């Protein structure tokens, strides 16, 4: 769903992650609190501009990732057309698309480990209360790893299904996928253990 890495390296990769996240936070709050159609139209165009800057490849990959929003956009627009509040519908749609596009932009141009660094700084006060920061940090990294992996496993399983069947797999691969995901978690646990697991970082 969210792509984690951009196909090309951009200038935004060099900005500090905290800055990008902070800016995203501010942008989200501003988007949520303003409901002027012209404002949202302008923001949307600006975001589009940001996607164009790094070049064609980046643009096409980035835009493709926004297409998952279409049912949502359609739903909102149809509903607001029906209740005759098109302007409001347009604001909601633009707001949503811009917000997601900006969030994707941060994700695409920030390496996971930089993102974690920020969380680390924010959570270190809790370490004194007994929170295993290393475990949390690794856990967050793992979630971000597993989201696309679940998608890929789903894809691989449907390919394997497709290779032997003319019917669509649909719900039928849910259970195999769940089993596969649980197995994957066990292997990740093993791979973690093989490289030191969750023990406190020690000095060499």
């Amino acid at each position, binding site marked *: *769903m*969210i792509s984690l890495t951009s196909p090309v390296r951009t200038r935004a990769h060099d900005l500090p992650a905290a800055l990008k*996240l902070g800016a*995203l*936070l501010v942008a*989200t*709050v501003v*988007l*949520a609190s303003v409901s002027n159609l012209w404002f949202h139209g302008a923001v949307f165009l600006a975001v589009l501009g940001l996607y164009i800057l790094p070049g064609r490849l980046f643009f096409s990959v980035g835009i493709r990732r926004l297409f*998952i*929003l279409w*049912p*949502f956009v359609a*739903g*909102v627009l149809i*509903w607001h057309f029906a209740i005759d509040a098109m302007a409001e519908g347009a604001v909601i749609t633009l707001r*949503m698309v811009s*917000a*997601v596009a900006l*969030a*994707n932009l*941060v*994700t695409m141009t920030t390496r996971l480990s930089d*993102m974690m660094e*920020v*969380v680390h700084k924010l959570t270190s006060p809790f370490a004194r209360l007994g929170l295993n920061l290393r*475990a*949390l940090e*690794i*856990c*967050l990294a*793992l*979630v*971000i*790893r*597993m*989201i696309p*992996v*679940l*998608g890929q496993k789903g894809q691989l399983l449907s390919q394997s299904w497709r290779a032997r069947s003319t019917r669509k797999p649909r719900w039928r691969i*849910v*259970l195999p996928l*769940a*089993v596969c*995901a*649980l*197995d*994957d*978690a*066990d292997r*990740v*646990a*093993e791979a*973690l*253990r093989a490289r030191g*697991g*969750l023990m406190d970082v020690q000095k060499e």
Partner: protein
Amino acid sequence: MEKTVANVALFAALIAVLGIVPNITLGFGVPITAQSLGIMLCGTILGARRGAMAVLVFLLLVALGLPLLSGGRGGLGVFVGPTSGFLFGWVAAAFVTGLIVQKWRQAPLTLVASVASIIGGIGVLYAFGIVGMSVVLGKSLSEATLLVVAFIPGDIAKAIIAGLLTASLARARPASLLSRQGV
């Protein structure tokens, strides 16, 4: 320990992935989402503590600005929106669901997991959700309660799916059903 972390991460990821399933947003701003199925599964498969941890980890990532909620929403904004009650309620829902599955071992797992999902994922969760909506939308508790009625049929269906899936997984991978490990 590593296994706990990997499984917690997996279920947090699962909630996120369920956010892609197309959802319907009701007029008042709360979506009907498959993510609540993910919450139930956290409880029925991981158990109370780990299940709640998975939800917390998921919410932390949402707060970081990742667009993981249904419809690609995320960021700190959602924690002050009309659905925020549900979001906080997810933690409690997973915990209660898990607790029931851990404690109630006499009946068939399909039944236990379904009932636990209904109690945690509807009873407990809606209480949080109703309070949240009434605060944010300035409605009375009873008005807010009327609004959530629309979710009940869907959520009962999800609870049954959660029950069936949990039981099938218990058969395929008994060791992975952390809610039933140990005595």
